[in-house]
């Protein structure tokens, strides 16, 4: 009986030598998440601004809640049978994709267009399962000018070429560019002795740069976020569930130009800590060998500790401590024996507003050696 009980908790990741025990792993993740969230909040509230507590406090709080939320959702999915074997064709970022993010709320006389981005994320797997390198990036921006009006009650006459009586006071275009590399290597068991209750783990290094160029009528302002030392860890809690965390320092460059002059670029400022926390749950939907297509889904919850693109979570009068949260659903559809798959998805960034994101992309075969 004890063996049967233990076996019921034991599952294996296909293609991986290491098996996991999802329930204790999720309990541990949830407990760690709760501890970090509590410790981060206490640190923020008790130590106070005097000692610059805000940043790690906010990140531990947000990341801890993401871990706790992921463990709870993962546990519910696990109870529904979601801890069984996973599928080899699980979702990863599309090799090429187009993402559309919705714009802001409509206002009379204003334009708040959505944002379109072309993304790429090809993978190279090292020989003999030694890890993988992913290059990723995007090019995009606002789909047209974003305009805002001056609502001061000064004018009651209609304005030519405009809706309403408020004059346009801000007209902005935005170009968004990002690039980076994500190197993942399996944590070298048995160098680090593995608990039987823990799943496999990976270590990651992800240097990255993000650029936003805002163009106004007569001036250009460019913001650059450099993340040179972002490191991460991925924990395979179950054959179908993973928790990934990234943390690193951040450097911010701000540059400006007026009247067609070249941008005045200078030295960086040290920014706040950067962090990302993701919980992925695979949902194999149609994986029969003789089916016309293979369909895998993935539910993702995440928290990003950065307000580089706005949209941070504010709680009551505590503004600016947290970044946005993400929830999304993506599906990979691969016609039988096809080397190319289609990937579709949608999700929402939740912060001081809600931005819905729709994605469509193609998955090409990975480069390099086989996956471990």
């Amino acid at each position: 009986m004890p063996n049967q009980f233990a076996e019921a908790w034991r599952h294996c990741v296909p293609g991986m030598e290491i098996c996991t025990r999802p329930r204790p792993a999720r309990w541990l993740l949830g407990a760690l998440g709760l501890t970090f969230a509590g410790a981060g909040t206490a640190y923020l509230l008790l130590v106070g601004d005097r000692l610059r507590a805000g940043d790690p406090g906010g990140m531990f709080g947000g990341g801890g809640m993401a871990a706790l939320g992921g463990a709870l959702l993962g546990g519910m999915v696990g109870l529904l049978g979601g801890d069984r074997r996973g599928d080899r064709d699980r979702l990863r970022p599309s090799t090429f994709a187009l993402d559309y993010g919705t714009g802001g709320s409509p206002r009379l006389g204003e334009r708040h267009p959505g944002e379109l981005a072309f993304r790429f994320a090809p993978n190279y797997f090292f020989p003999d399962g030694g890890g993988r390198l992913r290059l990723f990036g995007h090019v995009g921006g606002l789909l047209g000018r974003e305009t805002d009006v001056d609502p001061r009650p000064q004018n009651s006459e209609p304005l030519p070429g405009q809706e309403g009586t408020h004059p346009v006071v801000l007209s902005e275009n935005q170009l968004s560019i990002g690039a980076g590399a994500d190197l993942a290597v399996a944590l070298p068991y048995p160098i680090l002795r593995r608990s039987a209750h823990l799943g496999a783990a990976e270590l990651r290094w992800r240097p990255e740069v993000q650029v936003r160029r805002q163009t106004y009528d007569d001036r250009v302002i460019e913001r650059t976020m450099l993340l040179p030392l972002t490191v991460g860890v991925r924990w395979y809690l179950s054959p179908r569930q993973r928790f990934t965390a990234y943390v690193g320092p951040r450097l911010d460059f701000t540059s400006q130009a007026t009247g067609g002059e070249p941008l005045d670029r200078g030295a960086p400022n040290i920014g706040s800590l950067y962090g990302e926390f993701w919980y992925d749950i695979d949902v194999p939907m149609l994986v029969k060998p003789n089916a016309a297509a293979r369909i895998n889904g993935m539910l993702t919850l995440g928290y990003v500790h950065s307000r580089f693109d706005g949209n941070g979570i504010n709680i009551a009068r505590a503004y600016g401590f947290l970044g946005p949260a993400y929830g999304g659903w993506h599906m990979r559809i691969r016609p039988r024996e096809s080397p190319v798959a289609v990937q579709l998805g949608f999700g929402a960034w939740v912060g001081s507003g809600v931005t819905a994101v729709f994605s469509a992309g193609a998955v090409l075969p990975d480069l390099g050696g086989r996956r471990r």
Partner: protein
Amino acid sequence: MSGETQRGALLLGLGVALGLSALAVGSCAQPECVVPDYTDPECRVIAENEVGRLDAAVGAELRFLDPSGRSGLDWEALGLLKEPPSGALEARVATLGDFAIGIRGAPGEALTLDVELHNVDPNTVISLGPAGAGVDLPAATESVLRRRLGVEVGAGEELELRGRLPCPERFQLAFVGDIQTNPLHFERIMERLREDVAASQEEGDPILGLVLVGDLTEASSDDEFTAMLRIVAGAPVPVAVTPGNHDIVRSKVPIYNSSFGPGSYAFEVCGARVALLDSGTARIARSIEGRLPELFDRDGADFLIAATHYPLYAGLSGDGWSREDQPQVILAELAIAEADLIVAGHMHALRDDPEVHVGSQELRQIVVGTGGADQGLGVARFGYLRVGLEVGSKPRACFVEVPPLGWAGLPNHALPTLPYCED
């Protein structure tokens, strides 16, 4: 997974996608702030402009004007006008230095208006008359910040009530923020400021005003604002204010604007342009973002100082803005305008960042959230910042520590880049 479960998951997915699409499409476009929410900075822009003009029941219309005359607008949000149920019309001047109020008489009826000016330096020369032809009124007889005037205005007549502050060759401005639950200690800071104002006047380097960089209250309650108005009314120098996140908590009442007037405005005091930005919600209104070049336009001023509640450069702290792009855009605009100093609050501490890099320029930011609010662990450092301004010299900044009762001396030391002021 069974076929039914798959279909259920697909339907759920389609439902969520449709919901998100509905969010994307949104509802009909309406003007800003049709449903008032004063935690939205754009609604506060409307509120601060509404209280800068008064169509009084007694028959006259009053409006704050730009004293420099460079604004093309009918009125500017540079003060707060009120008509109490009885007594004089009240005009709280939000700026330091010069001010102007336009008065238009009722058609067909001459009036005598009883006007009480608040927050006006006793040395200010007040003039009254048609635009460009004002006559100076007798000087103040009391050294308080309020003046009561009787204004005779003919039927349909337009007058201007102007204030002109005589400017010394060098002067100082004081800054502090974050009082919240400790107005009692803020009163001690004001007592110390009163002593320093008297001493600086004798030394020929007078303190001309105090700038409060937000968080005057803890919960934006009426009682808290009433208490702060009482303390500020008794200040030794005029006080310019911008709100903090604790001052704009109430979404249905523009309590900050109806107490102090504008939160985002700029003025010039003796050759120093001071631009205050309402960052109470950790973001500024997009319309204010569009007006940054105008607000930071020196127009010949010798100095440019920007003051916000939220620091534009958060440093290693996570006390950042809700929209991170905005402080960086403001920094870039300040670099273009070659600003001399940024003063902020929010962090309950004294910090000096002498080199905030913006392009190839360096801006100086001083955080002075030392007005009395809880500073967490560690020895609290309360007090205010003094900035000395003299044409041809860089601004001189120093800090005046006002410790809580019980300390035999000063419990803290000066920062490496920011000295304590000499007594």
